């Protein structure tokens, strides 16, 4: 079951926007990080079921954070949420081990579909 969700994005508004369109009745626990480094540390502390990761961030980019998280936990479910919609950037994120990519601005239906898919993957692992 997806319970713990970590949102890594330097923009407080982007984090707020993402949380606001997630289903309210699923009892999710939200945790937030404002850059890749913070996200990596919180990942290690919290072991979230799903991590939403921006790519363009100060201190440590999303690319670097994905690489480090996957090194730490190869089964990490990282969903990239990014404004950098260049094919090369999206491919690079997937090559580093991201589970899937979603483009900003996020659409509610895309986010829900991504979570359902993540839920299925988690159940298969469990």
């Amino acid at each position: 079951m997806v319970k713990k969700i970590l949102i890594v994005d330097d923009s407080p508004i982007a984090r707020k926007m993402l949380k606001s369109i997630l289903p309210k009745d699923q009892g999710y626990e939200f945790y937030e990080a404002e850059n890749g480094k913070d996200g990596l540390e919180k990942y290690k502390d919290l072991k979230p079921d799903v991590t939403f990761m921006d790519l363009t961030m100060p201190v440590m980019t999303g690319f670097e954070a994905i690489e480090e998280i996957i090194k730490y936990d190869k089964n990490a479910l990282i969903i990239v949420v990014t404004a950098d919609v260049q094919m090369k950037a999206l491919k690079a994120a997937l090559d580093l081990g991201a589970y899937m990519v979603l483009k900003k601005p996020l659409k509610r239906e895309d986010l829900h579909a991504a979570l359902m898919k993540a839920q299925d993957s988690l159940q298969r692992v469990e």
Partner: protein
Amino acid sequence: MALQKEMTLTKEEIETLQEIMNIAFGQSASDLAVVIDTQVVLSVPFIEIMNITELPGYIKSHVKDYKYINIVEQKFWGRFKGDALLIFSSGSGKELISMLQSEESLNLESDPIDVLERETLMEVGNILIGACIGKIAELLQDIVTYTPPMAVVETYYYDAISVSHYDPRSTAIVLKTDFRFDEGNVSGFLFLVTSHESINWLKEALRLFLEQYE
């Protein structure tokens, strides 16, 4: 500067505008990447509010390391209106020519290099500025039109930026982002300068944008 910021946009409005700029420049980089087979490495956008007289100093402080710069300027107007200044590092024009055209299609005999450079900068500028402003307008439910791009090639940075055509009493909202290309020695800044005349509309548009996420 801090006082002006409080008078014009709230912290939440600035953060929202930053995120919108982030989405918009991401879109324009993607559009350009379709034309040029390289990745545009993006950075976090930044919003600054200042008196218009401070604008040249602000821009110069960012581009001074380039010494010589290439500028593409386009004005845009809708309810969101202002100037877009795309500033490339020295040598970017020639780099872009080689990235955009294969050697076979590069006809230097009929196209003098300075003309080609100017046209290439205008074309790339048009893509980046048009897609960025267009996306901002779309997200804020506006429609904008543009002047044709103008390019200034390899000019000394210090002499390049003037605000003589602005009302010196006006306040500028400056949206800035910087970028570099993954391949080729091309980097630069995009500055979008909108005046306080847009502020009431902008505040309402940002409120409506955020309302979708309440």
